[in-house]
């Protein structure tokens, strides 16, 4: 089994300059106050995501992954610690961070092209140019022929492609993706993973990706953060040494891929059932 932890540790020691750090989370904590008391969602999370990195947060549901993404996106404010984007403290959502959700969140009253054009609004492009630029982004995800379709006429995979094109059209520096392919069937998911990694290699955006799928994390990321639940905290930071470029399904069956998977599964296993009951049923 390869020793990820040691490798990532050596990476972490080289302190990069603030310009290199796209996302900086410093002792971030968050909790929710409910009728049944306080729920600690995140505790002492320290993550530094470098510019151009494909960073994946891997963890079981309920470990605070989405809360962390919401904090980075500026949708909620961390109750403890410091969050900075390119050295600047986060003070709300902004066009420097594009989001892609599992629910696609398309504007269903707009055509595919108009959905993408919506993102161009804040870029102050002349009206005549907008359609053309939007079409280029649709080209990137291969949906140029569906520009006049409406979201309800598209399959789940196509909807998520539109959402990706729309997020890219706003020209963000960072893409925040919250389990974007979780609602798709496994074959479509793999196709979109390959498309995403191609897009990432072409655009070199920093990607902050959330998933509970180990294969997905290994296939896509340059670095993986395994999280543990209750409260959510970083369990291990691993750098992924799979060869690039990876936009090829055959990577999934290589020995290196399987080794990485084994290592991560071992980390997660003892997390999922920490105090499993082994007794007689009542």
């Amino acid at each position, binding site marked *: 089994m390869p020793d990820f932890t040691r490798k990532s540790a050596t990476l972490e020691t080289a302190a990069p300059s603030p310009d290199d750090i796209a996302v900086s989370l410093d002792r971030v904590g968050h909790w929710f106050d409910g009728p049944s008391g306080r729920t600690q969602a995140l505790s002492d999370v320290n993550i530094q995501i470098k510019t151009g990195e494909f960073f994946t947060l891997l963890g079981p549901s309920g470990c605070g992954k989405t809360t962390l993404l919401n904090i980075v996106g500026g949708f909620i404010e961390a109750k403890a610690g410091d969050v900075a984007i390119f050295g600047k403290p986060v003070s709300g959502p902004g066009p420097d961070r*594009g989001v892609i959700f599992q629910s696609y*969140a398309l504007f269903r009253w707009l055509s595919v092209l108009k959905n993408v054009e*919506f993102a161009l609004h*804040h*870029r102050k492009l002349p009206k005549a140019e907008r359609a053309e630029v939007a079409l280029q982004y649709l080209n990137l995800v291969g949906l140029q022929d569906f520009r006049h379709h409406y979201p309800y006429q598209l399959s789940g995979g196509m909807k998520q492609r539109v959402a990706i094109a729309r997020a890219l059209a706003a020209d963000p520096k960072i893409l925040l993706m919250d389990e974007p392919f979780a609602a798709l069937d496994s074959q479509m998911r793999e196709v979109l993973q390959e498309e995403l990694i191609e897009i990432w290699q072409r655009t070199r955006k920093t990607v902050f990706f959330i998933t509970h799928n180990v294969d997905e994390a290994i296939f896509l990321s340059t670095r993986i953060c395994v999280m543990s639940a209750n409260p959510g905290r970083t369990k291990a930071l691993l750098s992924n040494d799979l060869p690039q470029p990876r936009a090829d399904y055959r990577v999934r069956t290589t020995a290196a891929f399987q080794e990485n998977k084994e290592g991560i599964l071992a980390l997660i296993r003892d997390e999922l059932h920490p105090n499993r009951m082994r007794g007689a049923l009542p």
Partner: protein
Amino acid sequence: MRARLKQIIAALEIRPALVGTLSTLLLLIIWSIWASKTETMHSSFVGPLELLRRLYLLATQGYGGTSLWVHIAASLFRTGAGFIAGAIVGICVGMAMGYSSIISSALAPLFSFIRPIPPIAYIPLVILWFGIGEFSKIVLIFLASFLYVALNTAAGVRAVPQDLIRVARTLGTSNFRLFYAVILPEALPYVMLGLKVALALSWAVVVAAELVAAQAGLGYLIMDAGTFFRIPDLGSELSAHRPDPCRHNEQELRRQPPASC
């Protein structure tokens, strides 16, 4: 025989228009026969053909010296003005309620209190405050339509997925644009439902309001015809043959200013 019946039923099941036409024809025939059995000089139950003839007279000769279209226009204007005002204010208030839980909580007790009150119950109050003129009827329609539009819009805005608003925010959308380009279109199905219910209610309420106090409008026409027992006698046709004391009274009343009625 049974097989033949099954065949007919199967044939009818896929022809809803034919079934509807047949049932309507049947109803009209029963109505005609029934009316012809009971018809008298001042019958309050006339057949469909007689009704159609009266309608034609009403349309061509008007009612009480006024064209039918004037009555229709009066009712339409009141409904339209009250409904449009109610819709605009209702959408604005509904959006504020849906967006802000504080505004929603602040208005909830008031709305819960007035929601079960039928709009017709406001008629005496509205007449007392705004008189029997045009304005009081518009206010009444406004009250009737406003609540439905506001509550439905609020529900629609509340149902806008959080992800959609978040995506729009990360696309650099301003607050104002977020409202009219994202929240309003997404909530539109709810808003339209509110408008539909409000419009139907407005029409019902305008007729009711005109029943009580009006000089024109369809509600007034119904009330006037009922008061003077002229249910089938809507044209000038019968009065040409026979002196009608009611008609004279009515015309005399009409010449005087409304206040003395």
